[in-house]
């Protein structure tokens, strides 16, 4: 299903669309205020992009350096070529420890690998511990935003969900009350957990450690209580040196939510005494994306979500319309690389206004890549016969001045005579919420010819 078809569901509730649109714009505005507190903001973006350029140009070297140092730190390093292998590695660690219960902090990578479904199918208990993720896990939904996973739900919805799953008072919509209920519930889960799994924000080649950023402290609650820690990292998350964190920690939270830094920026280098630590380095299409010169830059992404918050299409169509693990502008340049046929409509879910590129903390040229993907989709003839035929015809008309003049005249005459139903009918998607303007009496060319003479 295409993005525009999926959007119909989201657009049914006008009030919710407005709320979604305004809330995300508010987050974007907070980002603006926060970024302007740093005079060297643009320089930082430049640096962040430059560091990632270096990483991507020498990824194999950095991965080996990371592996060597991580092993020296006492971390078990695993390599997973794809989602399947990643999930199998996690399962084998669980089995080795006879583990039953796993607590997880936010990891978009494990969403990408569909780890939860895999583990549940093998009989393990998986508990997402980020509040937003726990909410949607109760109702078996994927995140609709990578930083604010439950942004598509209203507090009334969440109150209903908690009433059913956590026996909270019916109709009590107070976020404070609901959060407290989740806190009590999850505290038990943390204490009972056999294994804690986290994502990784940054892996540091030079030191063989990694950084996890949260505001809730859920990653730390899980990891510091459980006897085993598994961290899952996409190979593009590497940075060369510790000092580079200075750049990224200044950019990440300011870009994501407008706060100067996440409340917890946790650095893991060695397991605590008696604990076991694993890191899984995952490819799952990343080396292939690296091979595409025009789209290589998309791997610089640090998953702040700023491009979603600013995107006029994302804000008004919701995360689910994208039907992809990462929605929004960045997802629309990553997903076609994974499955072009399935995601062929995503590069068109954009006005190409460029706002995504303007806010991107690592300066990914997102809107240009969206445009590039459109060329690929057209070359592969995946964009539908209707569009292809109309574009071929349009190209013919626009290439021929006489044909253009003639058809222009014809259109101006016929549009005023033909019935409105020609535009506003169910077969014409364009006409659903639009009317044509009244046709002008003459073309500019005719007007100019006439007025220059007089």
């Amino acid at each position, binding site marked *: 299903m295409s993005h525009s078809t999926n959007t119909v569901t989201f657009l049914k509730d006008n009030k919710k669309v407005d709320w979604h649109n305004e809330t995300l714009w508010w987050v974007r505005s907070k980002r603006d205020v926060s970024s302007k507190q740093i005079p060297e903001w643009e320089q930082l973006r430049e640096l962040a992009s430059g560091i990632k350029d270096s990483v991507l140009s020498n990824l194999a070297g950095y991965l080996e350096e990371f592996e060597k140092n991580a092993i020296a730190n006492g971390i078990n390093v695993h390599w*997973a070529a794809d989602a399947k292998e990643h999930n199998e590695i996690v399962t084998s660690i669980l089995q080795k420890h006879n583990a039953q219960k796993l607590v997880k902090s936010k990891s978009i990578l494990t969403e990408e690998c569909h780890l939860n479904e895999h583990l549940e199918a093998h009989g393990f208990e998986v508990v997402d511990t980020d509040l937003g993720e726990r909410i949607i896990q109760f109702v078996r939904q994927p995140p609709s935003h990578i930083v604010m996973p439950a942004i598509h739900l209203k507090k009334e919805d969440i109150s209903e969900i908690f009433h059913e799953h956590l026996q909270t008072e019916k109709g009590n919509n107070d976020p404070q009350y609901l959060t407290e209920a989740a806190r009590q519930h999850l*505290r038990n889960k943390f204490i009972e957990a056999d294994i804690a799994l986290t994502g990784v924000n940054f892996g540091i080649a030079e030191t063989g450690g990694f950084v996890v950023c949260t505001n809730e*402290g859920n990653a730390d609650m899980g990891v510091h209580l459980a006897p085993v820690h598994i961290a899952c990292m996409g190979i593009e998350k590497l940075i060369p040196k510790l000092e580079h964190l200075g750049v990224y920690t200044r950019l990440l939270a300011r870009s994501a939510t407008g706060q100067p830094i996440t409340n917890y920026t946790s*650095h893991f280098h060695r397991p605590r005494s008696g604990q076991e630590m694993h890191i899984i380095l995952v490819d799952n299409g990343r*080396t292939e994306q690296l091979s595409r010169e025009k789209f290589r830059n998309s791997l610089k992404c640090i998953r702040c979500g700023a491009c979603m918050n600013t995107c006029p299409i994302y804000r008004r169509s919701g995360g689910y319309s994208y039907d992809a693990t990462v929605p929004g502008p960045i997802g629309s340049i990553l997903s076609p690389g994974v499955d072009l046929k399935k995601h062929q409509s995503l590069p068109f879910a954009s006005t190409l206004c460029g706002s995504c590129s303007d806010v991107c903390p690592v300066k990914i040229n997102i809107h240009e890549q969206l445009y590039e993907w459109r060329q690929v989709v057209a070359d592969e003839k995946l964009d539908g016969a209707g569009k292809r035929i109309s574009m071929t015809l349009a190209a013919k008309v626009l290439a021929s001045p006489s044909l253009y003049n003639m058809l222009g005249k014809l259109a101006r005459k016929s549009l005023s005579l033909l019935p409105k139903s020609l535009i506003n009918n169910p077969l014409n998607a364009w006409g659903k919420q639009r009317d044509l303007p009244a046709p002008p009496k003459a073309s500019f060319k005719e007007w100019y010819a006439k007025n220059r003479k007089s």
Partner: protein
Amino acid sequence: MSSREKMLGNIRKLGLEPKPLPEIPAFEVSKDLEATFTTSLEANHVTVISCRSEEEVKAAVAEQTRAYQQVITTLPDLYSSGIDLATVKKPSDLRYVEAGIIKGAFGTAENGAIWVPESLAGIRALPFIVVHLIVVVERKTLVGNMHHAYKKIEEIPGFGVFIAGPSKTADIEQSLVIGAHGPKKMTVILC
């Protein structure tokens, strides 16, 4: 072929030209580190108590912990009747602890982030599991921004964390709630 060889091979066969790393220049920082540090923390729902002597610090700790029965600290000089760290068998023993008092290695003015290596946390879980986290920071340790902060970390601990405020969430309709999983309250004693 192992996945490791396959992944590294896929990357190497592209034959990309290694690009140099950019130099990070020295950026200007606030002239009044203490004021900036305090403002950053207060904006993030942290109470800051400024002290000028050890007596003042002790008085502040006493005042902050007066209501609690269960307090744990790595600083017995400041609070003597706390739970003995040595008696903690496993981290979950700390689940009912009301307050934790620890020292921060240094503070970062631009965002209030305080570096807590595991040696200062005592137990890795401590700063996260207590209800009220009290962190003592010496004003002479303050640095301007995160670049200076990372330069100041000489020895990388097995675990270390920058803490900038109490545990918080805005996952329900973007309404801010303090105390998601970890501390519901944070106090910084600046001395």
